């Protein structure tokens, strides 16, 4: 007989109630996992399945019986007997305010349609604060591969996590400053060529607001030629090494304009390296060029 293989302790199921309905999930799950199992649409900005929950955006907060304050669904682990409300007045209020406060300080026009849906659902009116300070600033273009437009940055920390221990372990960027002046920065705000950046582009892959963008996309948007409806997505495998990363080539007018990888892919978990992300130019060398 073969040697026994340790497969870990069996996981128990934990029962809790969300919005008055009972649900059982595997222990160690988060409230967000439970909400998703029940098909309760929960807004998230700083949460991503391939990153460690950092619970800074607070848009996923829910009301937990016995807790003085609201708790972040994305990171709070379920406990037996929890009573959670995801659509109470307090929850709706905080979610609305988070979206409004962000909308009043950041250009969120390139966020996903989902975010616009949440803004509508919670009745967010970012303009109601009047003329107030924003994080508007010029776009940083300091290399040929990607640009950083921090006037679109909601400080979700995702790029820092992807650059750090959650994916790349390069640590080229961090959160600098404090309070409203907090921002994503390299050391002393040096350009990316002087920083530790290895151009893996994993920060672009996780950015929810378009603050980090392929330069090709940025240039096409500036020229008014960016048209997602005219783009095809072709799945392929990266041709460089033997790891077998899956690539999604976004192609417009027979030209690759952007490369991504699915978050749930078993090899990449959405992350690539500089070759897979940006090394596609050779494909587009046409005869005679």
């Amino acid at each position, binding site marked *: 007989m073969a040697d026994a293989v340790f497969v870990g302790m069996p996981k128990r199921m934990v029962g809790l109630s969300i919005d008055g309905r009972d649900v059982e999930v595997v222990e160690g799950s988060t409230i967000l996992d439970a909400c998703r199992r029940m098909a309760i649409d929960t807004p998230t900005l700083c949460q991503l399945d391939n990153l460690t929950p950092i619970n800074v955006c607070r848009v996923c907060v829910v009301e937990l019986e016995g807790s003085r*304050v609201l708790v972040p669904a994305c990171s709070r682990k379920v406990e037996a007997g929890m009573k959670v409300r995801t659509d109470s007045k307090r929850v709706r209020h905080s979610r609305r305010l988070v979206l409004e406060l962000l909308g009043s*300080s950041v250009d969120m026009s390139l966020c996903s349609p989902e975010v616009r849906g949440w803004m509508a659902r919670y009745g967010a009116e970012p303009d109601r604060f009047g003329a107030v300070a924003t994080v508007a600033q010029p776009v940083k273009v300091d290399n040929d591969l990607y640009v950083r437009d921090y006037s679109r940055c909601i400080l979700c920390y995702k790029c820092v996590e992807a650059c750090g221990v959650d994916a790349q372990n390069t640590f080229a960027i961090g959160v600098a400053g*404090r309070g*409203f002046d907090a921002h994503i920065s390299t050391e002393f705000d040096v350009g990316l060529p002087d920083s530790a950046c290895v151009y893996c582009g994993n920060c672009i892959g996780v950015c929810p607001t378009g603050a980090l963008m392929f330069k090709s996309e940025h240039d096409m948007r500036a020229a008014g030629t960016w048209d997602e409806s005219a783009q095809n997505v072709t799945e392929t495998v990266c041709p460089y090494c033997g790891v077998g990363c899956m690539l999604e080539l976004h192609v417009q007018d027979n030209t690759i304009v952007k490369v991504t990888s699915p978050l749930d892919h078993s090899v990449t978990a959405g992350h690539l390296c500089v070759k897979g992300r940006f090394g596609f130019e050779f494909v587009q060398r046409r005869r005679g060029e």
Partner: protein
Amino acid sequence: MDIRTTGGPATAEEMAAVDSLLGPADSLWSGGERRPADDHVAYGGRSRRSQRHLLLPVLHAIQDRIGWVSRGALEYACRRLSIPPAEAFGVVSFYARFALHDRGPLALHVCDDVACKCAGADEICARLESTVGPAGGAWHRSACLGLCDVAPAALVERSGAAHEERQLGSITFEEADGILRGGAWPREAARPMPRQRGRMLRRIGEYDPDSLDGYLSVGGFEALARARDVGAEAVIREVTDARLLGRGGAAFPTGRKWESVAKAVARPHYLVCNADESEPGTFKDRVLMESDPFAVVEGMAIAAFATGCDKGFVYIRTEYPLARKRIENAIAQTSARGLLDIDIEVRRGAGVYICGEETALFNSIEGKRGEPRNKPPFPVEVGLFGKPTLPNNVETLVNMLDIVVGGGAAFVSIGTKDSSGTRQFCVSGDVERPGLYEVAMGTPLRALLDMAGSHKLQAVLLGGAAGSFLTPEQVDVPLSFEGTRAIGATLGSGAVIVFGETADMKQVLLRIARFFRDESCGQCVPCRVGTKRQEEILERMLASHGGDSRADVMLLSDIAQAMRDASICGLGQTAASAIASGLTQLKVLNG
């Protein structure tokens, strides 16, 4: 980890500052000279990365010696400690104490916070602006320096091989101006004796705070000896019986905290004495550390003994140099005499209010940005360096001496049913006798105000910036946890700032809004943007005299609720409370 540094070499003096703490670099891999062997063997790895917690001490060494942190200096520190420069920049730019541009060796920090404002700090600042120039060069506006009993206060420092700093009290414009023109510094701020003393403050002034023998002569270390006699479990039982609630501001039952840490399975256990007292109007922990430092050390020794802590830290705000010196001396003398069985290390804060929040404090000791962590897990399970940790305030720990010697039953004989013992109150503002008052819990606020000499009262700010305003009609409130809670107020850190009839409450509210905007760590959206919007809207309302501001009041209340409900930590959760009470209780805008 491949650390990329492109900023050019550090100067010899910058390297000397870093090396003074870390010793000379031993290889190219840690920022030193290239040796032939370095081409073949790489040094570093876990042992070097585990020095991350030395980042703040190293940054202090650079700031003290050079006066600012240049790119070369920071990158040298990064090589020595194996920290990515972008992360280290995030840390250095987080803390107010570290300058990122050369502003000269001299720095004068003039407190213009609420208590000093009442004492005329604004006039000093305005005159400095017109004669010396705007703040930000050699002089700076500062949040509360914890010298509210000798307001207006300032802190002056001069960087160099021999870094000098001095706390100044009752400062005048002429003195400030003289300092900035290179003149001699006024003498160290006076340290008034506590105005009202109970059992806790009885040793103050009775012995030389620099002398262990002096402390022993007033009964020092009897409590620790008694604790060792009765054993750890009995000590925790007495603390539980004493029903002591933490004196830092959150009022958590101390006995429960001690029991959890004592029972925690993971090892080692850490003890953290929170001496980052930065709540505007609060100076009790400073007085205790300056005048009774051995009692703080003894309290820590008792806590460590009872809960099985293997190592202790005292995190003292950098604006308290005298307290730091006295505590360092007390630890050194006590351990040299063999009275301490744990190692206690003093860590210096770096000018950021949020580091008084326990989990932000842990991150700060670990060499990170002082951003609070989400709870749970709680510090008693996962605290400093991820281990079970006992965080206690200075006043809480000093209370242990009487609890251990006299027993929990005797302790609860003073105070009220739900608030046992005495409490230190820091009275400042428009009173004849500002200072520290130790009174039994449950004493009416009015009695405290009478002791301090308050006339023509307009308002009291109870609990500091995170507290709330009381009207003259509310001063009969008993100073207990339950008494203040009943009227929607809080004792907080024990700050009692008194405003007379002439105080400009609009400016006070604005200062509090500015305080929170400045001190928000910036991590979570409700607090980062909420404190900014709160300040902007308040400014707008105060500027438009008598206009219809109902919409703005609504906005403030909406922001306040989201900050209270959805912020990660206590700073955001209380950032609107004083302003809300100012608008609703005092009706500041209606006047």
